């Protein structure tokens, strides 16, 4: 287990297309500065999110996973975020119960106009993951994408 100096967290973020992704885009066009550690994957709605995605990310070595969607009552598909809220409330507790640091999986509601909130969410998330340290759950040597 080699501890790389100047380790930078790798965080996977699943953003809903209509609100959070647009919000993140706004942060970009407004030239707001925030840490570059987040890799964004666009999904149509937070309700599309499968808990398996989160589990797989954490097992494959992601230091953190974020799901971000529309605010309650503002879902583009009316109810997607309600289902997501239920599903991930259960997953979050289960992951913590099995010994995975709760800071590694987080959720946020970011609307299309909240570019500044997006930057804040990412800043705080990266700080928390940095203090949580690298994800050592699975040996990177045998399970990482080596060429």
């Amino acid at each position, binding site marked *: 287990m080699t501890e790389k100096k100047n380790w930078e967290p790798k965080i996977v973020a699943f953003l809903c297309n209509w609100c959070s992704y647009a919000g993140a885009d706004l942060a970009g066009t407004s030239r707001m500065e925030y840490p570059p550690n987040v890799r964004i994957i666009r999904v149509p709605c937070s309700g599309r999110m499968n808990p*398996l995605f989160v589990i797989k990310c954490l*097992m494959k070595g992601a230091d953190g996973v974020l799901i971000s969607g529309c605010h309650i009552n503002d879902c583009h598909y009316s109810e997607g975020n309600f289902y997501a809220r239920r*599903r991930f*409330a*259960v997953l979050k*507790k*289960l992951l913590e*119960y099995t*010994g995975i640091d*709760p800071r590694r999986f987080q959720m946020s509601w970011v609307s299309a106009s909240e570019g500044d909130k997006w930057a804040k969410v990412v800043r705080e998330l990266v700080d928390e993951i940095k203090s949580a340290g690298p994800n050592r759950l699975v040996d990177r040597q045998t399970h990482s994408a080596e060429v």
Partner: protein
Amino acid sequence: MVDELKAKVRELLKNKQVELVIGYQRAADGVSVIPCFVENEKDAELLIWDAYCVYNLSGYLKDYPGKKIGIVAKDCDLRSIVVLLQENQLKRENLFIIEMECHGVIDEKRLKYDTQNQEINFAQKCKGCPSAKLSIADCVIKDKGEKRKTPDDYDEYEPIRKMEAKAISERLKFWQEEFSRCIRCYACRQVCPMCYCPKCVAEQTQPAWFSKGTNLEGNLSWNVTRAMHLAGRCIDCGECERACPVGIPLRDINKKIQKDVQELFSYQAGLSAEAKPLFACFDKKDPDDFIK
């Protein structure tokens, strides 16, 4: 009780109310109990009923679609039948449910170790059995003996609370050790009445969700995923933990979700066949505090 049961089964078969009754019979070794498939009146003689009748037979119901089946069920088995009805896996009119008033079944594994103890070692799941007055059965065979009393202050979630109180690194160490023994035999899945996916997520290859190997990634992913897939559906029949050949405390995971689901959403699985499944609905007031 068993004579009443045999009579009822003979009657059902004679009147062609059912084509098959699934119950319990004694194994060849004279001690263990195995499932019994009664198709004619003569075979009804094989049926037994005692504290060794541990299995949840409701899993077999799905193997006979379209047929009229009778089933011998304990309280926990009834709850799993309710969930299967809720999810449209069974048709109520094709079932004849014979409820046996159950006072608890043995813990097979502890039986091996505590042979000095004269008292029957009841399974953990029985100690807190809600004995919910489910009125779903077609006929109830009562037990004239004295019913074991669950103490009022019995906390079925006590082992869960103990685990939650541990430090996170301790929890990780505990589960890593337990899952290191997992051999991915999928006995937990096959014995669970609620696991009926034609192609399990563990067997999918395009894409493959997690490793098929018995490494930590594969084992932790498998067990966590199965627990999530049972959220709001697991009724704590305890079969998974009983079937696990390497003794992983699977009830400690499934009950954790059961507890969370009850506390977060006031939802209990297996109480009503008309209720909507947990994740097929939502409440506007669902807890939100974990979301930024």
